[in-house]
């Protein structure tokens, strides 16, 4: 049983194809990371899955409900947290939660709201206007509000943008907690560390699905080879290596350089030029998810221009 099972989703705005033939299968209880650069169609894809946008082509089901015919059923079972805080800033925290609880026709709405306020630790501040909360608190409130009706599928659109590291970690703990209870979670993000907290990832670029799978398999399938160059005075080395064939990325990480290429012999030939330089060591390294994403981004053509 798939929580999300869509094929060929396509969305055009004017003559721009923002989402192009995207297919996705997400198993129940999975946390799936949805990655891609700005403007790649992540938000549009999510909106199509929760019935906020009508696909121009493609079909599928969400939680077993047909995407076209059963939008109301989907809305009842899905929780969607928008990128921008979109609860009512001129309502208090409690009023917002009451509103949501009643829209979903929750039984014992009052108790639900009270326990949600307790869990959030906002009971004493429940009469405060939502607009006066800080970014981190707004995010927590939004998450609590869109999970109050115990959705089977949670769609999170860049939920941690502009949130401090401690709040981000708490947030992810909560996500894993919810997934352990059987909730399926799809979360879009820019952050590599967050991608690594997901069971699987999907990478979308300029509307097209580029890669999908576990982090290990995405890295393995990228075919990238990475070497680490250690040493002092690496300033000139970077430019020198980039000029060589076979070197695709050179990125500094602290005192070392990540040198990434697709073909091992060519990469090793290039690194051979460093031999004999004093104080520089070259050794094989592990390709990181970030290396893979940078490659995806430079490979794909920008269709927004």
């Amino acid at each position, binding site marked *: 049983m798939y929580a999300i099972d869509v094929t060929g989703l396509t969305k055009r705005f004017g003559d721009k194809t923002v989402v192009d033939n995207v297919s996705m299968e997400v198993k129940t209880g999975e946390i799936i990371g949805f990655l891609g650069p700005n403007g790649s169609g992540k938000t549009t894809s999510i*909106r199509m899955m*929760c*019935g*906020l*946008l*009508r696909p121009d082509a493609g079909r599928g089901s969400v939680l077993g409900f047909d995407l076209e015919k059963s*939008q*109301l059923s989907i*809305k*009842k079972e*899905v929780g*969607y947290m*928008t990128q*921008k*805080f*979109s*609860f*009512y*800033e001129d309502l208090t925290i409690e009023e917002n939660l009451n509103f*949501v609880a009643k*829209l*979903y026709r929750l039984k014992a709405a009052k108790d639900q709201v009270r326990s949600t306020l307790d869990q959030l630790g906002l009971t004493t501040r429940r009469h405060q206007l939502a607009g006066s909360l800080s970014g981190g608190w707004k995010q927590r409130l939004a998450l609590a509000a869109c999970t109050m009706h115990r959705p089977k599928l949670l769609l999170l659109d860049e939920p941690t943008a502009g949130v401090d590291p401690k709040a981000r970690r708490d947030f992810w703990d909560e996500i894993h907690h919810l997934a352990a209870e059987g909730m399926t979670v799809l979360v879009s993000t820019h952050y590599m560390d967050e991608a690594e907290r997901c069971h699987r990832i999907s990478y979308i670029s300029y509307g097209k699905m580029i890669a999908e799978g576990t982090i290990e398999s995405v890295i393995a399938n990228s075919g990238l080879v990475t070497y680490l160059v250690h040493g002092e005075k690496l300033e000139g080395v970077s430019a020198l290596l980039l000029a060589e064939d076979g070197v695709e990325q050179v990125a500094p990480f602290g005192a070392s350089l990540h040198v990434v290429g697709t073909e091992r012999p060519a990469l090793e030939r290039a690194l051979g030029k460093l031999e004999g330089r004093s104080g520089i060591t070259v050794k094989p390294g592990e390709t990181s998810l970030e290396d893979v994403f940078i490659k995806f981004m430079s490979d794909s053509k920008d269709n927004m221009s």
Partner: protein
Amino acid sequence: MTGWFSLTRLWALFLKEFVQMRRDRITFGMMLGIPIMQLLLFGYAINNDPRDLPAALVATGNDPYTRAIVQALEVSDYYRFTTVNSSAAKADQMLVRGEVAFVVTIPSDLAVRMERQEKPQILVEADATDPAASSAAISALPEIARQAFSRVNMTAPEEQRGLEVVVHRRYNPEAISQYNVVPGLLGVILQLTMVMMTSMALTREYERGTMENLLAMPATPAEIMLGKVLPYLGVGAVQVVVVLVAGRLVFDIPFVGSVGLLFATTIIFVFALVLLGYFISTIAKTQMQAMQITFFFFLPSLLLSGFMFPFRGMPDWAQVLGEIFPLTHFLRVIRGVMLKGAEWPDVAASSYALLAFVLGFAVLALLRFKRTLD
């Protein structure tokens, strides 16, 4: 002399402002279209000296005197007999309903009395709720009578031309214009506030970014619509009470008819208004546009509904146009009930028209409502 005024900077600001203005197509269209439309519309429709006012004739005789009087009235251009050979009761009802502005009653034995030189009377009852509409027609009466007799009995000596024209200014005998204006103002105030407030119902959600969330939750279009307009019914009810009490205490407006009937029809009117506002909010993209569309609607309804100028004094096409405004129908109801003591059968047609607006605007709004962000 550098820095304090630069033509280049002025030009940049000018261009930016112009481009922004042109890009907001509704605004741009209104700025160009409204002046022309309104000039033509109001220039032809508005008439402060209304002529061709509908009148009912209660006369059974068919003698030369009666014919002469009727003819003279019609030739005067002020009176247009839409109903002839009416019974007195029927004519009275038409006056209450505002279907005619005058009832002219000519006694059946007019000819006999004329010949006996008994100075017979003819009765002209005018709907004086709007003093402006009837005053010119009333003041023309002596001249009309004189002309009528110059036709029939040219040879009769002056003193024999005895005919008395009795004028009854019904409902507002002292011709106090507040009697007409204040009840009308209730309609205008309700229209301005109700339509304007609800016209921002959806655009506000869009502009604050809360629409995305609302649409993602399981609320149906009908629930959203009613949830957004019903609170304003309460606000409208308060306004009604305030205006009616002020009308009574400050302006001494008489209240002849049934308060319950007036209140019930007013609620229907307010319901139509808030749904109209909500319909506008399904069209407008920003709160600014919602305001503009509201005013675009507001001015013609003010001028063509019979609030500012006599409805029956407008040309036929303008009267037909006036029927598309809920305010037109509400004015008939409130003036009828408050000033003339109209009862349900008298205001039924207008009330049904208001109900039709409620249904029409609701259906239009639901059709326009977008369940998605497309």
